[in-house]
């Protein structure tokens, strides 16, 4: 048959018929895109950039440094003068909140890390190579989130533990001193890690959504730091209802040892903050899928 003869000159399986069976040549060479492989690729991408190491290092360093310093410079008199009795509200010092003083700074660092992982691809043009290799696109977003989340979780939990342990001698003899075995201490320290890993994923989502590092970092800082302040301009009743649900407030409920009366419980805090992250991820997924790269 002339058609078979013609096809033989082409590569096997290079059939131009629209209704062909699976290509024999792809199964022969076993090259195939799978979710696990995309994850592996994103893992390799993450660690092969110096900026990942630096930003991650800075995050953990800030976490440990600020926590330790806060514990060592704590003086009971200073707080006793102004604030209400310990254990009352979120504004009070306890050994855990002192150890986690650095969380805000670390959250900016890991957020930026997430943004760079995503928007950095757009800034450099790498995204064209990435999406040409994974034209279904969405696995790239999930993989970035799945790579950065656990990495940040593990390292910041270690960082939080280190900050607490390093700070313990500084609080020696103080009323607020706690040990790792005390109620809620481990939960709070781990909660800080959970919060920071969600912030990193939030950064990835923002980076994919906005596609510019500068823009995404601005939105990140705005959401985490400026939004709660701006919201205080709202009428009091509205502010009181909404305040605990802002991303950073919901997030801080995750790692607070003592819940203030108006804050969410740690579980609810995780749920609300994760909700914000999921919403942003959904937006990022939509844009990634729908618009030209």
């Amino acid at each position, binding site marked *: 048959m002339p058609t078979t003869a013609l096809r033989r000159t082409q590569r096997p399986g290079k059939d131009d018929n629209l209704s062909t069976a699976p290509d024999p*040549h792809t199964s022969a060479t076993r090259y195939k895109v799978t979710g696990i492989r995309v994850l592996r690729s994103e893992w390799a991408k993450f660690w092969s950039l110096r900026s990942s190491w630096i930003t991650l290092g800075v995050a953990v360093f800030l976490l440990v440094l600020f926590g330790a310093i806060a514990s060592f410079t704590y003086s009971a008199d200073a707080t006793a003068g102004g604030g209400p009795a310990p254990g009352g509200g979120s504004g009070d010092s306890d050994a855990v909140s002192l150890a986690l003083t650095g969380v805000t700074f670390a959250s900016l660092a890991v957020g930026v890390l997430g943004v760079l992982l995503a928007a950095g691809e757009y800034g450099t043009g790498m995204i064209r190579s990435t999406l040409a290799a994974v034209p279904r696109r969405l696995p790239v977003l999930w993989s970035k989130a799945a790579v950065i989340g656990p990495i940040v979780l593990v390292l910041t939990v270690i960082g939080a533990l280190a900050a607490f342990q390093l700070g313990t001698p500084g609080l020696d003899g103080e009323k607020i001193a706690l040990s790792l075995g005390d109620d809620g201490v481990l939960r709070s320290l781990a909660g800080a890690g959970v919060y920071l890993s969600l912030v990193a994923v939030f950064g990835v989502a923002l980076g994919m959504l906005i596609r510019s590092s500068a823009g995404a970092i601005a939105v990140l800082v705005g959401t985490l730091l400026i939004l709660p302040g701006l919201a205080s301009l709202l009428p009091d009743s509205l502010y009181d209802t909404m305040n605990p649900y802002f991303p950073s407030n919901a997030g801080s409920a995750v790692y607070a040892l003592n819940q203030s009366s108006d804050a969410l419980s740690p579980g609810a805090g995780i749920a609300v903050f994760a909700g914000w992250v999921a919403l942003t991820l959904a937006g990022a997924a939509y844009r990634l899928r729908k618009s030209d790269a």
Partner: protein
Amino acid sequence: MIEARELTKRYGDKTVVDNLSFTVKPGEVTGFLGPNGAGKSTTMRMIVGLDSPTKGSVTVAGRSYAKHAAPLHEIGTLLEAKSVHPGRSAFNHLMALAHTHGIPRRRVDEVIELAGLTSVAGKRVGAFSLGMGQRLGIATALLGDPAIVMLDEPVNGLDPEGVLWVRNLLRSLADEGRAVMLSSHLMSETALIADHLVIIGRGRLLADTTVDDFTQEAGGGGIRVATAEAMKLRSLLAGPDVTITSSSNEELLVSGRDAREIGAIAARNGIALHELTPQSVSLEAAFMDLTRDVVEYQSAPADTERKAA
């Protein structure tokens, strides 16, 4: 095999690619030509699904690019050379892409060697020269051992040795039965590599032809014949596909017959010729002729500024 059917891309009210249909066949090098801004890169981006067409469709081996299980094995692309994170080494860049398909490290080393990047594979891509960036882009395109290789301006920034390397590489890829598509705005360069030409301007198809046909037509400036017996020769040369014009009574411009034929006819009839010259038009001139009306960024003639001053 790439098949574009009525491919159209609009950004707002600007139509960048306009109802473009063409085919890139296996075993051939297809030159994709057009002046700057003709829509070449946009078309290539649509082929690999980076941009979605406003209208029409393009398939790679019969399906849209995203539907392939191993896209890099179907078509390897070099878009702009800077589709790389400058902070990553060439090796890590290739390895990251290889991971997505389960391509072994052995293959990564292979394409690095093929592209002549072995000595710089560990260096950050940001420190690469334009030519090295192009080589990395070509290595990336070949990574998945693709059936189609599509390169956007591959010889940009390459030194003469590199240009020759690309030329031989593309030829051997086509000879292996792969489809090769390369874009360029240089006709003369493309004619040396390509078998087939797809020429576009302002997003529209201007010509879909072979290099041989294009060359022939470009050479179809006719043949100038000078003889004292122009009138007599004119009637002897006349034929169905022959057009003859004359600018003076001793000169003819003949198209439709080649020099050998004309000389033979003249000799047979005892007509002495003073001149028998094929009027060659350079490929570049023929290309510019074809695209003159559709050049996006037309430069003013060089003398206008002087007149104004």
